[in-house]
């Protein structure tokens, strides 16, 4: 049986150091939920509070209606996959997978059938009698998953489970994890600092920074309409430019530092007033033009990197801001360094934040955690 997880006003302190203060979060039943953030943001701490390995200094944690704050980790019925897998090195693959069931005093037959079933599911049956030191990283990862899932936990917690794998295996295993979660239908809380991995596997993502949740939403929402400047820069790449919002009547116009103007129809009504703003433009949200008659932000190319599908141009604007522009690679030659270019803006895609970057001024931001 799967559960929903509710966290209310969680507090975590180490001595006098408050790591997390007043954090609230709702994780839905059966969803693949990811805690994403830079290292040290408190995501692993929060996960270990759910698991019961970290003490809770304040607030309430619920699995459905059961408060779990004081429940022993062994009784929370969680499956956990660790960053280093934590496979018992002195037990065979089969014994590792069966360990949880043995602790639950399951019958011999049940242990045998369930263990076999999950080893088969994870494609590790052929290694059943091997010792862990003779398994590759990916195989150990599969053992860790099978071991966590075989006890039919209410929640599966994963702490950077792919960070020890090489790039190719990481991509392969995240598909495996996503599929397994789908098959088993279990509530899954996943911690990672890799935003691409987070987007690939998650139903919803909570972006964390310095112990606070910045935004909770589906990958698409977070990428396209980040709630604040931190989310905009942490998820994907963003060029941050200063600008002004000029409002006349109903018409809001974004003015770049070199005077280039773009009308913005999608500014939220309550923010329609003239003000300094920060503009976040992703590299692919520029339209690169070499024709000087086309309007756009003026810039000069410093260097370029050809990556096959795309070509990345690094340029600087008149005001000295360094920017990155991505263009689908053209069949003719790469634009040489030193060329003056004009950058058109895909206005429906860019985001505008108030001068401090604390909130987005545009319509369409979804933040499930907004108060």
């Amino acid at each position: 049986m799967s559960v929903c997880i509710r966290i209310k006003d969680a507090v975590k302190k180490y001595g006098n150091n408050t790591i997390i203060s007043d954090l609230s979060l709702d994780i839905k039943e059966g969803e693949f939920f990811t805690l994403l953030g830079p290292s040290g943001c408190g995501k692993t701490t929060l996960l270990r509070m759910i698991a019961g390995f970290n003490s809770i200094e304040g607030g309430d944690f619920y699995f459905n209606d059961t408060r779990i704050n004081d429940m022993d980790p062994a009784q929370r019925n969680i499956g956990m996959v660790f960053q280093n897998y934590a496979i018992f090195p002195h037990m065979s693959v089969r014994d590792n997978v069966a360990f949880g069931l043995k602790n639950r005093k399951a019958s011999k037959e049940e242990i045998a059938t369930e263990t076999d079933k999950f080893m088969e599911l994870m494609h590790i049956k052929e290694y059943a009698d091997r010792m862990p030191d003779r398994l590759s990283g990916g195989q150990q990862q599969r053992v860790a998953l099978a071991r966590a899932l075989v006890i039919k936990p209410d929640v599966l917690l994963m702490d950077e489970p792919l960070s020890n794998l090489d790039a190719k295996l990481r991509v392969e295993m995240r598909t495996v994890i996503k599929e397994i979660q789908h098959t088993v239908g279990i509530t899954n809380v996943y911690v990672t600092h890799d935003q691409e991995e987070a987007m690939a596997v998650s139903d919803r993502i909570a972006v964390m920074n310095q112990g606070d949740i910045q935004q909770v939403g589906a990958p698409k929402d977070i990428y396209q309409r980040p709630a604040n400047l931190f989310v905009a820069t942490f998820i994907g790449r963003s060029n941050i430019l200063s600008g002004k919002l000029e409002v006349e009547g109903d018409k809001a116009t974004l003015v770049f530092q070199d005077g280039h103007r773009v009308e913005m129809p999608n500014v939220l009504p309550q923010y329609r007033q003239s003000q300094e703003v920060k503009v976040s433009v992703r590299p692919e949200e520029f339209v690169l033009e070499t024709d000087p008659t086309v309007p756009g932000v003026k810039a000069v190319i410093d260097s370029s990197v050809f990556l096959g599908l795309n070509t990345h141009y690094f340029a600087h604007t008149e005001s000295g801001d360094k920017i990155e522009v991505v263009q689908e690679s053209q069949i003719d030659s790469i634009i040489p360094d030193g060329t003056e270019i004009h950058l058109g803006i895909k206005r429906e895609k860019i985001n505008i934040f108030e001068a401090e970057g604390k909130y987005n001024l545009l319509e369409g931001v979804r933040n499930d955690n907004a108060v």
Partner: protein
Amino acid sequence: MMKKTKKPDLWVVVSIAILCAYLIFLMYPMLNLLQQSLYNKDGAFTMEYFQKFFGRTYYFSTLWNSFKVSVLATIVTLIIGVPLAYVYNMYEIKGKTVLQMVIILCSMSAPFIGAYSWILLLGNNGIIRKTIKSLLGITMPTIYGFNGILLVLSLQLFPLVFLYVSGAMKNIDNSLLEASENMGCKGVKRFFKVIVPLCMPTILAATLLVFMRAFADFGTPLLIGQGYRTFPVEIYNAFFSETTGGDYGFACAISVIAIVITTVVFLLQKWTSNKFAFTMNALHPIERKKAKGPFNVLIHVFCYGIVGIAFMPQIYILYESFRKTSGKAFVPGYSLNSYREAFKVAGNAIKNTFVIGLGALVIIIFLAVLVAYLVIRRRNKVNGLIDIMSMLPYIIPGSVVGIALIMAFNKKPLILTGTMIIMIIALVIRRLPYTIRSSVATLQQIPITVEEAAISLGSSKAKTFFKITVPMMSNGIISGAILSWVTIITELSTAICLYTVRTQTLTLAIYTYVSRGNDGIAAALATILSLTTVVSLAVFMKVSKSKDVTL
């Protein structure tokens, strides 16, 4: 809805039990010792014992003697051990595995057996001395006194430096050496500018260990010192000697002074080694190169020369044990007579060695694992205190442990003197710090997530400890235990204070027969002891799958 399941944590109980054991068997004897040194027989406070010690050059000179011989022995072991480790790890030496085995064996034998053998070789009637005299007509100086102690201690202890520094050199990445060579620093210059500094933390640790061993060594000066009086012997004499003995307060005062000195040295070493603290991890260990020409010959002569001299006493003892005897004297020819006699007269001692040794070993392993777990996984004030107390015996010389235990447990409510129990307790106290350290090191390498994984899978804390933690530690525990076993069976300084006829052990029997001049039986017993050591080491290498021994 809220369920408070606050069961009393089993580990709290374990903590308290261990704390009590330390208080009773370590702290109480040591504080008692301190008290006895400050109060006279009528129970009045007095400084007379300390005044007696510092007032007379006769006593005070023993302190200076001990200090001098320990410092010099430490320097000599460094001069021999560090270059030996360097050559051994940098160049291809023929037969290097055997060489290392022999070096380890040298460090494991009881020091006083070495001393005894050197007397047979270079003493008044020493065979080498006599041979040289008859061949060349030169009268060599005898081995007794300062030179003898220095020789025996240096040869006994340089293997420690060798093993420590070899271990450190295995952690030096080859690229560091290549980089230094690349920048024009090689050969001798590189040895002093790069390799020695890189090994400095280890060299300092080895220095401390060697000094402590040399300072506390009891058997060597007892046998070979003759007129040269050192500290541990003085303590023993003050306590036991038939003529000057029985002055308990004075013996306690000397013990206190000894501990103060070792403590100062210990703290000094900690202070210096903090300045050199860094960690290394070699991805590409140093590859041994083949030396060329005369240099190759030189390093082989150096390695085999040193090791040969160090091993010679053991070989000579082995040879002695097979010589034919008549009464106490050797007669021409060879026989197993000494062994027959040895088993007849010392069978009980052999049995005792195993009973006491194994008894101590079981307790040591048990406690070491528990303490290591408490210290690493359950850090709190009580366990911090246990951690500190567990390291105390490191700085207490063996004979002091012996005397402290006698003073503490020769009266009601707890009379233990003369029993096997007190000998086991003494061995546990002395050896525990080393085994705790190796268990701690093993446990630190086990990621805590493995235990958390077990708990998250529904295993109880106790079950996790016994089914997960202990099995994962087992290799480290067993290899640590075997090394403890070897030091236990070769221990003399504490046992000599505590033994009775019933609880005599092999080392004590050897000492007894040596002092009675019964060389055949002594040699046979020493060979049996060495053989036990060899077998134990072979088992160790089999279990730990390594040729590295760290004490």
